[in-house]
């Protein structure tokens, strides 16, 4: 039997991340994600079809109003495909963010009664949303086929990179907000509003090419801004990815992850007492 020794002591201000323990509990990531997926579409007729319908409906509405009426430019892509890329990537980010932020509260009874590395709860929502993302991504490919758009080979690099940036950004912000949410339920009121506003601060319905370059760099602090922009370029067959904005978005997401994780670890000792 392993001679594992557990030492319990009075609080030290900050807990280091125990990678070995997280590795030991790796299965729990999958179990939580699997549970959320199973529960989410129980007693629905369409089931996972909702992961297709939501972006599809938004695509139609946005195409009619912003593409046709407002005549918002869409660079080299047909507007429906253009807006769908934005919606799907933004949906992955915002879906993860809102699920992660509420994860500790939603699992209050588990937090109070069982021990496991707490970060698994918010971080496992990345997995859940990745499944939804994959389903809608297949639809995106079908739409691309319909419009006879052939992505550049660079897409094989940019798309995984975009997912990683989105996961780090949403995961980090989610860690921060989930810990904050335990103490201050203001998050519950502020977050839906914040997410709604953020969609306009991301180039989802408009191309970032309509912005001044300096403003483009500022917007790129939003991790999805650089990602959506780059994905659209490679989707339309181009190679002229704006590496600077992508780098800004990438750095921003890494910073968000570090800050979020730090705040999470520095408050986690009190979760079970306050929640």
């Amino acid at each position, binding site marked *: *039997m*392993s*001679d*594992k*020794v*557990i*030492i*319990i*002591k*009075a*609080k030290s201000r900050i807990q280091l991340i125990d990678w070995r323990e997280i590795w030991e*509990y790796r*299965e*729990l990531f999958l*179990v939580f994600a699997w*549970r959320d997926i*199973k*529960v989410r579409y*129980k*007693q629905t007729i369409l089931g996972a079809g909702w992961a297709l319908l939501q972006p599809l409906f938004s695509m139609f509405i946005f195409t009619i109003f912003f593409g046709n009426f407002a005549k918002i430019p869409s660079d080299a892509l047909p507007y429906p495909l253009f807006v769908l890329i934005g919606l799907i990537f933004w949906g992955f980010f915002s879906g993860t963010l809102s699920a992660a932020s509420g994860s500790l509260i939603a*699992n209050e*009874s*588990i*937090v*109070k*009664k*069982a*021990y*496991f590395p707490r970060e698994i709860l918010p971080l496992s929502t990345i997995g859940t949303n990745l499944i939804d993302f994959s389903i809608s991504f297949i639809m995106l490919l079908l739409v691309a086929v319909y419009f006879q758009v052939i992505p550049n080979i660079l897409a094989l690099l940019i798309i995984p990179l975009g997912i990683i940036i989105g996961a780090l950004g949403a995961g980090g912000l989610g860690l921060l907000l989930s810990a904050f949410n335990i*103490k*201050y*339920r*203001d998050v519950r009121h502020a977050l839906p509003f914040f997410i709604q506003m953020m969609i306009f601060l991301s180039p989802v319905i408009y191309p970032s090419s309509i912005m001044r370059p300096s403003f483009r760099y500022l917007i790129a602090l939003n991790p999805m801004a650089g990602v959506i922009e780059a994905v659209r370029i490679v989707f339309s067959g181009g190679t002229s990815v704006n590496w600077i904005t992508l780098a800004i978005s990438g750095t921003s997401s890494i910073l968000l992850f570090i800050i979020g994780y730090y705040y999470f670890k520095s408050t986690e*000792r*009190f979760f*079970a*007492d*306050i929640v």
Partner: protein
Amino acid sequence: MMKPIIEVSHLSKKYKYGESQPYYTLRDALVNFIKTPASLLSKKQSSLKKNEFWALKDVSFKLNQGDVLGILGPNGSGKSTLLKILSRITFPTEGSAMLRGTVGSLLEVGTGFQQELTGRDNIYLNGAILGMKKSDITKKFDEIVNFSGVEKFIDTPVKHYSSGMYMRLAFSVAAHLDSRILIVDEVLAVGDAEFQKKCLGKMESVSKNEGRTVLFVSHNMMAVKRLCQKGILLKNGKMEAEGSIESVISKYAEVADVSKKFIPIKIPRIGVTINKISINKKEKGKVYPGKPLKISIELSAQKKVENIGLQIMISSDATEGRIFSTNTKTMKNIDVVLKKGKNHFTCDIHQFNLCSGKYKLGIAMDKPFVELYYNEADLFYFDVLETILEPALLPTLPAYGRVYMDHEWTIE
């Protein structure tokens, strides 16, 4: 020489009063900060500020491999806090503990059970939350299902289970935990008597045959006596006694006393709080054999609650089993509706026919025939005093038996 498996030294935990508020808002924090701007600067010390209390204070003990420790104490004495600290769910304010080996905690049956999922899914979910590996669960899956006795319904969502089946399945998963140290809170009080016996047997084999170290909280003295060799007694967060389980149990009977302040009991599921329980208030809590016994219970409900049963249980510390229970619905067929706010229940026993000695009073609340919301057989102890029942010549000593029955002699 073998090192102790568990070493607990000077463990203390401080809590704040008035956290009854469901949660803070940012505004509350700002208000607090404006009121006491120094609060951010001052370092927490081992002294208490007003509105703080020690849920646990200076608790120390050691356990060797294979020891089974019973943790006793009245409600609010710090038992659960101690288990939560040792399970690493919450952390101590002072002191430390060292545990040599993997820890499995069973603070609740069915932690994380998901109503929508099937029994099969929930076994994997609950097992993973308790720290089991998927491969281990798969290996033990049949054993778990057999133990629970719900084979037929294993692919049915647990929301369709009866509460008994639910509890059986939940306990079965937990009983198959493989850790070296097992921490068990009051979880044996589930299911029917037969299943309880089965659980107890399982616990026994876990500790005796497998040489695992167990910490065990229960109000069921028979279970404690059967399972544990050692015991500690907590009261108001402090250790009152330590030693052999027999000595600690008898000490506990002295401590858990009706005259002490009653700590309100919350039943969050139905938004009900038991504020006060008193017996023979007019007589200042004195109870005599053959005389009336009046039990008064004050509840407050956050909102109207329909279809509820209130049950009173009386049992003896000296003998096994319950002596008397009454339930508003199942015994008296009263349809109780709790109104919002305070509700008063009074149970008049016209003649309390138990002989002198120590007895326990318990309360349960249920949705009659459907669901048990709360069940605590051991809320407090009360004494039935010795008296001389006219025209007897000797007092009602326990030696004469447990029950006094009204009777007449005929001599021909």
